[in-house]
Every structure is written in structure tokens, then in C-alpha cells.
């Protein structure tokens, strides 16, 4: 899965103070139509939470208590928490270390390494897991989960940290040196504190992914809550035990959000003063250059070499037989169809929501903020389970329909579109719109000719993020796909579950190839932010 690397939009507005800031209250209050649209989107994003609460109540407290307080839940809690507690700090160390080496030292080939460590984002975590199981078939349990997810997700840390490092004002570091700090002292007392927002944002994103991942962990036989909920679904379809596990998982997600918010605090991180900061002077590594190069090369081999090598190996073993073009083309067509529809719809719906969030400061704006913050942390399995239950009971014709699965994608990936659309909208000066209106253009024409055009790059980035997220989505797709659907990830999953690794390889390859351009977009975006 690929997600926005630069954290949430509020981080972004905080972190580049030179961007034109919009003026709340000034531009406009949302009209009834926009308000209604936004209210509906916000309400829809709350369906998963509503479902968990409803399930807890309808099961009854005694039964719910017995389903939650049992050894199996303790085991899952231990696994899931241990995974987060080990993986996130590992990603911090690797992400910050790599970013520092690549951005701040005189290491050779920095232009080569810089995009290379974003590339793992093009390999879905479940494909990475498949690659590792191919190399070490007995790989399983907590450490397998840690290895696979660290190698899949450390770019979420690397990207924002590298972007922040690039735009830090070296003057502060120079002052620290002038006052007698050595290199290590400068790093820990000056640089690291300024990276706090980036590290927390990246850490939250990684944590959210760890809680939501199914395929990668199922393949290495590591049971987290999401894996167990999926098993319960396979056994009971719409059962009480699965719903209660989902409830505990939601609580874990909320705990993660609260922890991040507390750690973030209220500190300011923007640079005060006029003019642009100079570029920092690269630090000479001296003899440590070799250690640095070896470390980067080793990481590249583990994170990219292993999946690429296993994929090629299976493709070689499978030969021409595994290229069943009919099946692959069908899956590719359905995947592109679903991902396109979902990406367009999500981005279109993100507009009114982003507009309210950026341009007004009322109750609705705060509701949007809160709802988006919470739903961005909800795993696909919870949303899918909620939609199964809601449609079976309230709208049976919707169940197993294309409409429902597209709706699920919109719910799941709205936050990704929103981050980008919002950032784009925040940089549109309301005065340009006002000028357009005063020259006689209607609101609709103003929106199309001024607002939409100015936000086009950010919107395209948001839509492409959603596209890849849908194309590589597994959990919700498996639960909600209509009869006759076979997407790339469904086919890959079905074949690799039967341990037919060779036949699964072409699907994995196509998935990776689909994700490459968007990974490039992400990389370019992060370098552009730094240029601001």
C-alpha cells in the first residue's frame, strides 16, 4: 500500500510557512449544497465506528466481555503491540539514518540513493512477504512480521525526514557548533528535535499500516488482530467474535492517534525570519564513508533486491506457462477499472470536504477535521466488515455489488485524496477567485477556471495515490468483491495461498509495475515541498 508520506495536511501547512495562507471567514461560508455534501461524506466515514459500537451493544455486555477478555485476545494484543513497538522505532532508526546519510553527508552517489529508498513503496507489503517466504520458506511469527514490515514501510519515515532535513536552516546548527557542540551533540540536540513532526507523522503512518495489514502477515503465519478478524470472517461470516476483535482493533487505532497527538504537543517548528536558508554544507564522513556505503547497499539489497530477485526467479521457473494472458488481462482490466472509478470519485468528493476544511472555521470544519483524522487510521478489515453487516441487514441489494466496493474504497482512501487536495486548495489565494467573480464569472465558472486549474497538480497526485491504493488493496476487496470479480491482488492472493508461487509471480510483477509511476510522483512531490 502506498500512502501520503508527508503526514497530514496540518503538518504541511505548519511546515512551510512561506506558502500563501488562506484567510478563514473571509472567503465564504459553505452554501447549503456544499454543507450537505460534506455532512454526508463525514457521516459515511463514521459508519465503521458506528458498526463497532452497534455490534458491542447488540451482542450484549456479558457476551461481549467474554469475547474480549480471553487468552486469544491477549495473544493477539501481545503480537500486535509488540509488532508496533518493535517496528516503528526500527523504521525511525533506519529512516532517519538513511535520510541523514543521503542528505547531509558527502557520501558518493547521493543522487542515486535518494530515489532508490522510496522505491520499496512500489512493492506491496504482501508481495514483499511472498518474496521473503520464497527465500526462507520456514520464516514465520513475530520476527518475520517485523522484518517484512520494516523493509516495506521504512520509506514512510525516510521520505518526510529527508524532506525536512533538506529545508532545515543550517544557521541553527552552526550556532550550536560555535557554542561548542560536537557533531553528535548537534545531531541529537539540534537536528533531531527539529525532525520531531516528520518522525511522528511517519511513525503514525507506519503504525496505521501495521494495524491494517493482512496479506503480509497471513503469509508468514503471524497473527495480528487484522489476521484474526479475517479468519473469524472466513469461519463465521458475520459473527460476534469477529466484531468484538474489530472493536479492540479500533481502540488500538485510537490509542495510536492519541499517543501521536500527545507526543506532537504544541511546539512550533517553523523558521522565523525573512529570506531563504542556505543549503547545508555536507558533513565529511572520512573513513566512515565505507561503513555508510555498505549500510545503504545492504538495506537496498534487503528491501529491493530480495523482492526483485525472488520475482525474477519465480518468473524464470514458471517460464511461459505462468503467463495465462486471458486471466491476467481480465484481472488487469478489472483492477484498472475499479481503481480509476474509485480514484476519480474519491477525488471529486474530496473537493467539497477540503474546501470546507480550508476556507471555513465553523463546527462543520472541525467535524471534517476530526472524522478524517480518525478514519485515516481505520483498517480496511473494519470498514469492510461494517459494510457487509450494514448492507446485509439494511440494503441487501447493495451487498456484493460494484457500488459497494467502490464506496468502500472511497471511505478507505478519502484521507489520502484529502491531504493532497487540501494542500493544493490552501495555496489558492482567495483574492484570485474574488477577482474572477468581480469580473462577472459565476461561482461555477470561477471554480473551474481558477480554483480547479490551480489545484490540478495536487489533485492529480491525490488521485494517483488513491489509484495505487485501490489497485494493491487486498483485505476489503476479498470481503466485498462481487461475484465474478478478479483483481490482480485477488488473483495473486489466491494463487500464492495455494503455494503456487510461480503462477502468482506475473500478477505480482504487474502490481509492482502499476505502482512505480505513483512512487515517482511521491518522490517528486517530496523534493518539491523542500524547494518551497
Amino acid at each position, binding site marked *: 500500500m502506498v500512502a501520503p508520506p508527508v503526514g497530514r495536511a496540518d503538518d504541511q501547512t505548519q511546515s512551510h510557512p512561506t506558502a500563501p495562507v488562506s484567510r478563514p471567514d473571509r472567503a465564504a461560508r459553505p452554501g447549503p449544497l456544499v454543507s450537505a455534501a460534506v455532512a454526508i461524506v463525514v457521516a459515511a466515514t463514521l459508519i465503521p465506528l458506528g458498526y463497532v459500537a452497534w455490534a458491542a451493544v447488540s451482542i450484549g455486555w456479558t457476551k461481549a466481555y467474554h*469475547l474480549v477478555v*480471553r*487468552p*486469544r485476545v491477549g*495473544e493477539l494484543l501481545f503480537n500486535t503491540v509488540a509488532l508496533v513497538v518493535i517496528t516503528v522505532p526500527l523504521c525511525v532508526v533506519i529512516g532517519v539514518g538513511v535520510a541523514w546519510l543521503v542528505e547531509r553527508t558527502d557520501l558518493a552517489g547521493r543522487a542515486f540513493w535518494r530515489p532508490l529508498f522510496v522505491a520499496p513503496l512500489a512493492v506491496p507489503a504482501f508481495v514483499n512477504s511472498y518474496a521473503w517466504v520464497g527465500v526462507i*520458506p*520456514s520464516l514465520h511469527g513475530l520476527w518475520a512480521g517485523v522484518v517484512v514490515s520494516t523493509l516495506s514501510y521504512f520509506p514512510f519515515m525516510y521520505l518526510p525526514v529527508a524532506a525536512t532535513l533538506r529545508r532545515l536552516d543550517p544557521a541553527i546548527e552552526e550556532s550550536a557548533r560555535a557554542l561548542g557542540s560536537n557533531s553528535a551533540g548537534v545531531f541529537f540536540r539540534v537536528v533531531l528535535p527539529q525532525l520531531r513532526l516528520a518522525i511522528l507523522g511517519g511513525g503514525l503512518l507506519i503504525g496505521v499500516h501495521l494495524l491494517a495489514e493482512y496479506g503480509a502477515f*497471513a*503469509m508468514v*503465519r503471524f497473527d495480528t488482530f487484522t489476521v*484474526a478478524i479475517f*479468519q*473469524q*470472517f*472466513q*469461519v*463465521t*461470516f*458475520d*459473527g460476534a*467474535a469477529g466484531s468484538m476483535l474489530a472493536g479492540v482493533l479500533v481502540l488500538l487505532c485510537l490509542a495510536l492517534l492519541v499517543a501521536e497527538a500527545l507526543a506532537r504537543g504544541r511546539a512550533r517548528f517553523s523558521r522565523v525570519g525573512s529570506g531563504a536558508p542556505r543549503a547545508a554544507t555536507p558533513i565529511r564522513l572520512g573513513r566512515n564513508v565505507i561503513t555508510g556505503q555498505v549500510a545503504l547497499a545492504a538495506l537496498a539489497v534487503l528491501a529491493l533486491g530480495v523482492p526483485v530477485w525472488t520475482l525474477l526467479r519465480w518468473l524464470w521457473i514458471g517460464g511461459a506457462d505462468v503467463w495465462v494472458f486471458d486471466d491476467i488481462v*481480465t484481472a488487469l*482490466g*478489472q483492477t484498472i*477499472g*475499479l481503481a*480509476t*472509478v474509485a480514484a*476519480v*470519485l474519491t477525488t471529486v468528493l474530496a473537493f467539497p470536504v477540503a474546501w470546507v476544511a480550508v476556507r471555513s472555521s465553523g463546527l462543520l470544519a472541525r467535524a471534517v477535521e476530526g472524522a478524517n483524522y480518525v478514519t485515516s487510521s481505520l483498517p480496511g478489515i473494519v470498514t469492510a466488515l461494517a459494510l457487509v453487516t450494514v448492507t*446485509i441487514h439494511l440494503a*441487501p441489494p447493495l*451487498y*456484493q*455489488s*460494484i457500488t459497494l466496493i467502490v464506496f468502500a474504497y472511497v471511505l478507505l482512501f478519502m484521507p489520502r485524496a484529502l491531504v493532497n487536495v487540501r494542500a493544493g486548495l490552501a495555496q489558492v489565494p482567495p483574492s484570485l477567485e474574488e477577482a474572477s467573480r468581480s469580473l462577472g*464569472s*459565476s461561482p*461555477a*465558472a470561477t471554480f*473551474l*477556471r481558477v480554483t480547479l486549474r490551480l489545484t490540478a497538480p495536487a489533485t492529480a497526485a491525490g488521485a494517483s495515490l488513491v489509484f495505487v491504493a485501490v489497485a494493491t488493496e487486498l483485505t476489503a476487496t476479498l470481503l466485498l468483491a*462481487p*461475484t*465474478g*470479480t478478479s483483481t490482480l491482488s485477488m488473483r495473486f492472493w489466491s494463487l500464492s*495461498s*495455494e*503455494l503456487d508461487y510461480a503462477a502468482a509471480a506475473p500478477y505480482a510483477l504487474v502490481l509492482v509495475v502499476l505502482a512505480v509511476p505513483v512512487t515517482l510522483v511521491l518522490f517528486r512531490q517530496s523534493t518539491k515541498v523542500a524547494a518551497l
Partner: protein
Amino acid sequence: MRRGWSRIAALVSVLAVVLGATACSGSEDKNELLIYNAQHESLTKEWIDAFTKETGIKVSYRQGGDTELGNQLIAEGEASPADVFLTENSPAMAAVERAGLFADLNADTIGQVPAQYRPASGKWTGVAARTTVFVYNKAKLQPDQLPKSLLDLEQPKWKGRWGAPPAKADFQAIVAALLQLKGDAATAQWLAGMKANAAIYNDNIATLKAVNAGEVDGGVIYHYYWFRDQAKTKEMSGNTALYYFRNQDPGAFVSLSGGGVLKSSRKADKAQQFLKFITGKAGQEVLEKGDSFEYPVASGVPANPALAPLADLQAPALDPSTLDAQKVTDLMTKAGLL
């Protein structure tokens, strides 16, 4: 202004085309028979192809697990779009039967299947069979070290030495048989022993592979996974052998794959025809001659000659309608296996 609107129009029409395209690929033909298929996709496909060739009736299917699709049918009730339900094991059939969703099968279908391979109720029938086996690594276990009964595997001396896939309906059917034969207390105790002793795998194939690699000494799976691999590369089973528990032991349980017609089906005639076809000579010969290695159960068709004859396996006698999936799930959830 005009340029703006034409752009919007273009966007909307693209959206409509793509929506239309995806909707078509997922929609079903009104005359097509819809199977909720929990059987192996490859086997059902063979049946469907032969059936369509003979009758001209088109068939589509929704693929899923036994209990998943069974519970889905129960949740959907009368509104279900399904015409036929096929499973790998009996408990999910029994659950749908208890929910009152099956129509009576036609007498000529029932007439093709011997009484021991179908429930007495006549609401559904066995369409194929598989037997429980203990697959073991020949380097790790000698024949005299094998467990005498499935129940032995709860003993501490088996700790860390055997594996199984508890989340799969296959394994849950074996537990359902154990429950029916030995009762609640013995089953709960055995499951607790399993939780302590067994390595947990995702499915039969992963279990077989682990036994072959010597990760564990043995595993509880169904027979045909082993025979399929033996017929191909032996890559996953070359170091292993099969052991049949026999003696009416719970571990000698023969599980019936079921087929039934939904009461709510609006194509009941065609659905009945499909059941008659797969339990008929042509349908059963798919099992004998194909590469599924599942046992035929009807129309006097013999098993694939590679297999040990079903009649020699001394399976415990059980009415498949009595197998209780719900209770098995509860017991396994309590034991912490789910």
C-alpha cells in the same frame, strides 16, 4: 465557460464508460445458474464445463470457503441469488439445512447416491469424499512411533511435533466429527491439547510442506493434497508417507463434500439437473479420471486406482447432517485457536 463545461462532460462520460465496463464484467446473466462454490475451483470448473457441454446451460460461481459461504447464505436467507451450494465438507451444508434453506433433492439424484454418502433428510447429498490422514516425515517418525488415535495428539509428548490448519473448514469438519463421536468435554480437552502442542498453518498445503521440510514430525490433513503432489513433482511430499488411523477412530473420519439446491432458487429445475449431473456417471468420472484425487461416492464409479479403497478405511459412521459447525467454531474460539 464553455471549455470548462465540456471538460466536466468529458470527465463524466469517461466515468460512466468505466463504471459501465466494470459493472458489466461483474453482472450475471439472468439465465445462468449461480453456484456458491466452496469446492476447489478447478474441480467445480471441470464439472461446470462438462455440464454446460451436455445441457447448454451456462453456470457462474462465487468462490469462497465452506463456512464463509454457508453463513453468507444464512445471512442472505430467502433473498440469496444462489441456486446451488457446493462445499468441501458437511458442516456448512448441515448449517444451511438447519436454517431451512434447502429444497428437497429430486428422487433420481438421491437414487444415485448410496445411503452412507448422504444425510437421511434428503435435503442435500454427498458429491465427493475425502479422508482424514496423518502425514508424517519418514526421517522423523518410524511406523511404530505413530499415534494410535487422533486423540493421542493431545498428549504432552507430541508438543511441537505436529501441525494442522485450524482456520480451515477442512480441519473444522474433523473436529465436528470428533465432537459428534466423543462429546463436548473430550473435544474441548483435545482442542486445549492442540493449542499447546500443534504448529498452526494456514492450510493443508502449508501443513504438508512443513512436514515435508521436517519443521514438524507429522500433520493432520486430507488425503488428496498428498496424492496430487505425488502425481506431480513430489516437491512438497517426497519425504513423507500417509498413515490412516482406521478402527472407526475420529481420525479415520471421511468427510463428504456436499451439494444442495436452494429453496429460494428461481431456476430450481436447472439446479436439480446440475446436482443430478454431478452425482451421475459423467460427473463422478471427473473424480475418478481427473487430477482432483477426491473419492467418487455415487453411480458406482470407482476411485482413482492410486487411492486406497474408501471401503477399507474403517471410517466411523456419522450422519453428516448432525455435524455442528457453529459449536465447533465456539469450542475452537474458546480454545484460542480462532
